[in-house]
């Protein structure tokens, strides 16, 4: 019953060229840094990657960009990345920009078996073009469709061999949503504890969403914008 995987290399081996992968994280906060690095080494290409952002040039999803493994990026904000800009402008990289709340809900819906939902977000903007419009109590909404992934890469703080996960602070972000929406969810944790050591009342992602779990060892946890109080 244990979902403990032997290595990141083994876990990402099932990811094939052309797969859709949902990746947790917000900026560089709470990204599955070990699995991304393993995927960069594995080399699967023509990937569709669904994630709020696309890393920075030399870290996070930026590693997959630098390797030209990403065919299409689905994200809400991609402003922190030079390589991204280059590949986008020369037509190598396809981009679908999705409002952040719509992106989160599309992934949530994917994990929850809801095929689509109506939202007012984006009505009257370029995002609404070509989408079904419908009025509810006088308010126009557009139809947005669910997202599921062939795989999901997530990062949590603590986990157990059944795949139960607890996140820490704002490193939670898209991780629980991604975990539920991936056919194969690979969860990496800072600390893998024995079964029974996590309080069931405080589990954020119940283990049934997770297929592989690994302890990631030392985490780099890069800070994108280091801001401190002025003394």
């Amino acid at each position, binding site marked *: 019953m244990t979902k403990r995987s032997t290595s990141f290399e083994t876990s990402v081996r099932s990811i094939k060229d052309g797969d859709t992968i949902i990746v947790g994280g*917000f*900026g*560089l*906060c*709470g990204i599955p840094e070990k699995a991304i690095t393993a995927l960069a080494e594995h080399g699967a290409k023509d990937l569709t990657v669904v994630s*709020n952002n696309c890393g920075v040039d030399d870290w996070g999803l930026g590693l997959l960009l630098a390797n030209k493994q990403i065919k299409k990026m689905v*994200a*809400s*904000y*991609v*402003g922190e990345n030079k390589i991204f*800009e280059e590949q*986008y*402008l020369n037509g190598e990289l396809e*981009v679908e*920009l999705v*409002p*952040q*709340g*719509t*992106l*989160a*809900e599309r*992934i*949530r819906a994917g994990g929850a078996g809801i095929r689509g939902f109506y*939202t*007012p*977000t*984006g*009505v*009257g*903007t*370029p*995002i609404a073009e070509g989408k079904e419009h419908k009025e509810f109590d006088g308010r126009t909404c557009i139809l947005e469709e669910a997202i599921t992934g062939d795989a999901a890469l997530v990062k949590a*703080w603590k986990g157990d061999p059944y795949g139960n996960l607890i*996140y*820490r*602070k*704002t*490193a*939670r*972000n*898209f*991780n*629980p*949503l991604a975990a539920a929406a991936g056919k194969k969810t690979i969860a990496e944790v800072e600390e893998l504890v024995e079964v029974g050591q996590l309080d069931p009342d405080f589990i*954020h992602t119940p283990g049934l969403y997770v297929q592989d779990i690994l302890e990631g060892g030392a985490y780099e*946890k*890069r*800070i*994108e*914008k*280091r*801001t*401190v*109080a*002025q*003394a």
Partner: protein
Amino acid sequence: MSNSREKIINRAVQEIEDGMIVNLGIGMPTMIANHIPAGTDVFLHSENGLLGIGPYPDESELDPDLINAGKETVTVKNGGSFFDNAESFAMIRGGHIDLAILGGMEVSENGDLANWMIPEKMVKGMGGAMDIVQGARKVVIIMNHVNKHGASKVRKSCDLPLTGEQVVSRLITDMAVFDFTENGMILKEVLNGADIASVRENTEASFTVDEALMQKEDSK
């Protein structure tokens, strides 16, 4: 901080009332947090999954797992909470955020907002702006009244691609405060030495002048 920026922030902070749940956009709006008076107890919402943003950390408190929507390291105030992004936007779309203060590129006379993309330039994305303008109970936009070429950013209609249609409740610039109502766009206040005439000169949009403001100026 530039002079006009400071003036806009000083006026914008007056929108924040005790007990409110407030979302501040990235950039100039984030700076409003430092100006909230000590006795005003508010919860600042950060769309990446934090209710109750605290001050910036000192070196010893610095935590890579604790950031705001602008990806800056922050702290959490007592009584704060963490949640995932779907729940965060359920709070926004579900009407649980009292006030959002966001930056703008253009605002039109019917309350349309453009603040996320300039065609022909690299598009970085809308982040959470399109959700926030649809969901927050009150949307206040802060921006300079004119662009660097002196052209009005307060337009008859927006040239730039929209973030939302008829979503702005109030616009605060370095010259004026406007409200957007069923009766159209209304000039409520003139700021920083501007008067009704100078606001008209610098505004492309059509607006009416609030009765009280008119009387105030007449009595000068």
